[in-house]
């Protein structure tokens, strides 16, 4: 058992790399599966010193739900932002900084949240506080900053909490 952990320090990464290789090759064959798996074993093994901790995924299946929610939001919010850019005069727009107090603790989860915030249009994560308890977000148009903060906490942070912590 110990030997298996030694050989596969990051089973998720191995799986992900194999899948990535298969998708890159773009055509199914046993050859590419074997080679992808080989890469999936060698790369985590060689880069092991840089990844001392294994991210703790409590409910991996929830990731699929999370991705779907984010994709839907991206499409919806893209239209909203396009409307703002095209039709709203700059004088009426209220750009705003908002501070999001974080309940997430692990760096992986905070990174995922920051990335999500940037990819969903209208909001952009800019910085994290010095001790990692808050996230600084810039809003393109936020007449009501508190509502944006609550929505991010409700929609994304709660789901990430379920996945990571």
């Amino acid at each position, binding site marked *: 058992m110990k030997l298996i952990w030694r050989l596969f320090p990051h089973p998720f990464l191995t799986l992900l790399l194999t899948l990535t290789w298969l*998708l890159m090759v773009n055509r199914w064959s046993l050859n590419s599966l074997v080679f992808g798996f080989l890469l999936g074993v060698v790369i985590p093994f060689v880069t092991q010193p840089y990844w001392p901790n294994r991210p703790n995924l409590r409910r991996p299946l929830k990731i699929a739900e999370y991705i779907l929610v984010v994709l839907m939001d991206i499409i919806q919010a893209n239209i909203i932002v396009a409307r703002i*850019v095209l039709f709203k005069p700059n004088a009426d727009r209220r750009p705003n900084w908002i*501070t999001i107090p974080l309940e997430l603790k692990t760096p992986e989860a905070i990174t995922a949240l920051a990335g999500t915030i940037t990819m969903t249009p209208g909001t952009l994560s800019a910085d994290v506080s010095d001790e990692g308890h808050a996230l600084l977000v810039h809003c393109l148009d936020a007449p009501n900053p508190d509502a944006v903060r609550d929505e991010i906490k409700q929609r994304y942070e709660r789901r990430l909490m379920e996945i990571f912590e």
Partner: protein
Amino acid sequence: METILEFLVAAFLVTAGIFGIVGSYGLIKLNDQMSRLHAPTKATTLGVGGVLLASMLHAAAFEKYFSYHELMITLFLFLTAPITANFIAKVHIHREETRDTMPEAGGDDHWATHDTPEDEERRHAAQTPPEED
């Protein structure tokens, strides 16, 4: 059937083009630095996404094979776009803002971009209890 699929591919391409143009137009139109940063990150999501969907659909419908590596482009974009945006935002905070012009950092003292080596030493000293002689 073929015509419908062709229309669908064209529709995806046109939507992608529109969002690309809106993203670029936003760069000119928006009037402060941080807002300007919003426009290009948006063009990457739906603008590129639409082209990739059209490409996958075209391969499946007209070239008789399934193409997946468009998914990889999406994945790599989603990994890299937030990081470039974050770096540009950090440059803005460095050059244009000071600790006093920034909003409160939640319960903490300041934002990480304004952190100095002295701050780090202070934090370190606060965490490790003073040694007894």
